[in-house]
């Protein structure tokens, strides 16, 4: 006659907990898929905060130390993509340069570079898709052309360079006119490769993340140079002919020098606001950054040894690859740390490195000149420009 009752049915505990038999779910957020309700919660558990009143009076106030920005949601595939697309770009560029020599002896080298470029593009595409929240929608990357978005530009460049390098690679050894078509595609790929090689630096520069935004004048150099190092290291490990080795080595030595110089420049840019530079000096990102630099130095030193010292060549190549990966991982990680530190954002903007840096002065800044108490707007001396 009676049956047992079990409570708390696991079904429909999706944070809205609406019984579909009673209520209609048609709201904009109703389609938000929920596996764990805490997923979207931005705070890390019970917050260790000082008694609540102590926060607002601090000379450099924050909201209970909570981040002002959202941390980038990207996963490990993204820094690996930075490395991989850099390889693709550098290979495309070098392939173009070598093609231009018209030297038939170097033709296999050209073909190999084109294949390096196109396969790195393919892997890059895979890495990017792996990071997407909705991988099935990866083609939407080419839905619009948005010059304001480095990622949109990158997607188009990736599409272009994959296509051009692909055609060029396929037609590397084709006869007659087809080969000329292939070379033309190769040149086109090389032209696109010039910005493509380091564009991921612009991609991260064009964010609100303090350490990334602050290094916009130097990071593109670092990423481009690091990509050159990456390519030369890869070639040094795999290339065969002596001339090929030579080209790769010269390309790499220049890349390593540029990498070291530009990493100093990046640090200098970041250090203008101490809180901004912090992740390059501390923690996991700091360690990666320092390791990257050290390995780049070692790699450079080894690569300056005579070319016939084979172990040195190999070691230099391994260190160069590790340095490039480490540096890009460090930059990526530093950005995550930087976005979680509200002081980085606030200090930077108070120091005139917010909008003021691009020719604007916020009237809010006027009020920030006095700690604790505000200067009323009507008594302020006008905006600081």
């Amino acid at each position, binding site marked *: 006659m009676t049956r047992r009752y079990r409570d708390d049915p696991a079904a429909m505990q999706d944070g809205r907990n609406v019984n579909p038999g009673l209520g209609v779910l048609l*709201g*904009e*957020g109703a389609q*938000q*898929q*929920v596996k*764990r*309700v805490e997923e*979207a*919660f*931005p*705070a890390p558990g*019970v917050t260790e905060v000082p008694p609540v009143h102590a926060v607002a009076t601090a000379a450099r106030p924050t909201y209970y130390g*909570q*981040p*002002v920005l*959202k941390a980038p*949601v*990207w996963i490990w595939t993204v820094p690996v993509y930075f490395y991989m697309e850099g390889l693709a770009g550098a290979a495309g560029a*070098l392939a*173009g*340069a*070598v093609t*231009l020599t018209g030297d038939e002896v170097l033709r296999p080298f050209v073909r190999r570079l084109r294949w390096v470029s196109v396969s790195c593009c393919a892997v890059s595409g895979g890495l990017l898709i792996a990071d997407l*929240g*909705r*991988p099935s*929608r990866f083609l*939407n990357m080419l839905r619009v052309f*948005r010059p304001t*978005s*480095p*990622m949109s530009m990158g997607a188009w460049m990736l599409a272009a360079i994959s296509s051009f390098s692909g055609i060029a690679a396929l037609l590397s050894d084709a006869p007659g006119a087809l080969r000329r078509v292939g070379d033309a595609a190769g040149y086109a790929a090389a032209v696109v490769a*010039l*910005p493509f090689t*380091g*564009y991921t630096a612009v991609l991260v*520069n*064009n*964010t*609100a993340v303090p350490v990334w935004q602050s290094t*916009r*004048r130097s*990071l*593109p150099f670092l990423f*481009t*140079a690091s990509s*050159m190092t990456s390519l030369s290291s890869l070639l040094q490990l795999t290339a065969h002919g002596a001339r090929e080795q*030579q*080209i790769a080595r010269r390309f790499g030595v220049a890349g390593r020098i540029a990498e070291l110089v530009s990493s100093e420049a990046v640090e200098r840019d970041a250090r203008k606001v101490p809180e901004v530079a912090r992740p390059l000096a501390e923690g996991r990102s700091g360690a990666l950054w320092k390791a990257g630099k050290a390995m780049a130095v070692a790699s450079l030193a080894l690569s300056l040894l005579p070319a016939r010292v084979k172990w040195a060549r190999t070691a230099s190549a391994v260190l160069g690859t590790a340095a490039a990966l480490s540096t890009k991982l460090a930059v990526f990680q530093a950005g995550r740390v930087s976005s979680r530190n509200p002081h980085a954002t606030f200090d930077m903007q108070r120091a005139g490195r917010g*909008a*003021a*840096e*691009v020719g604007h002065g*916020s009237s*809010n800044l006027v009020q920030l000149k006095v700690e*604790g108490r*505000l200067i*009323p707007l009507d*008594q302020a001396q006008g905006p600081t420009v």
Partner: protein
Amino acid sequence: MPATDPTPRKGFFTDTTVCIGCKACEVACKQWNQLPDDGFVFTGMSYDNTCHVGASTWRHVAFVERPIRLQGQTAGIGDFSWLFMSDVCKHCERAACLEACPTGAIIRTEFDSVYVQPDVCNGCGYCVAACPFGVIDRRKDDGRAWKCTLCYDRLKGDMQPACAKVCPTASITFGDQDELRSKAEQRLAELHGKGVTDAYLYGMDAENTPGTGRLNAFFLLVDRPEVYNLPPDPVVPTKKAHAAWQALAVAGLGMAAVALTAAFSVREASR
């Protein structure tokens, strides 16, 4: 494009001096949009247990306990005041998320609001890092980026957003930008007249927030922006990106020079 559209620009004016911290806006937003809760965590941050606007919390009320007297108020417990502020997406004139979005999922609507199209977003996450206010966020389990829509669906039906409608004390008002601006200026003058000289408008026009331009959701505050977890001088990253593009151009050309030099020098040498 909005420039050719006759629809007036819409937005919120949030007057924090009349906010009672009831959080009706948070709930009304979740109710209308049918958003999930964010879990049940006691944070100890005064009466704020939702911490921040995020993927599933599009309105958020901040609670600030200050050992500072609020002008015009006498607290029998000494120098003290309790500030409340309902935060939301600013729908910036220069919106970082919009300019960063590579898929066109984020668009500028006819109301001048910034809208994420959930049927287009592929979850690249670029908008998340771009937003200078830390508003937009991606849910891992859903995969897409979400934020306040300014109740785009309601606006199309000639209704006001759920949060503004529900607000018991009209701390959140919704309307045409021109009306909101005059209302805000009037309120500011009124407060200054009453001796609340700390009061100022955040984001009402490009003077406050030149980096992002006018914020379609702007605020009347009585303490520094940081106290409410707002950036003092936010800037749309795109405004700074030209420097990066320039650097990239030089770097790219440099690489070309190195590549050419390497290629040609070796050929010369080996001859």
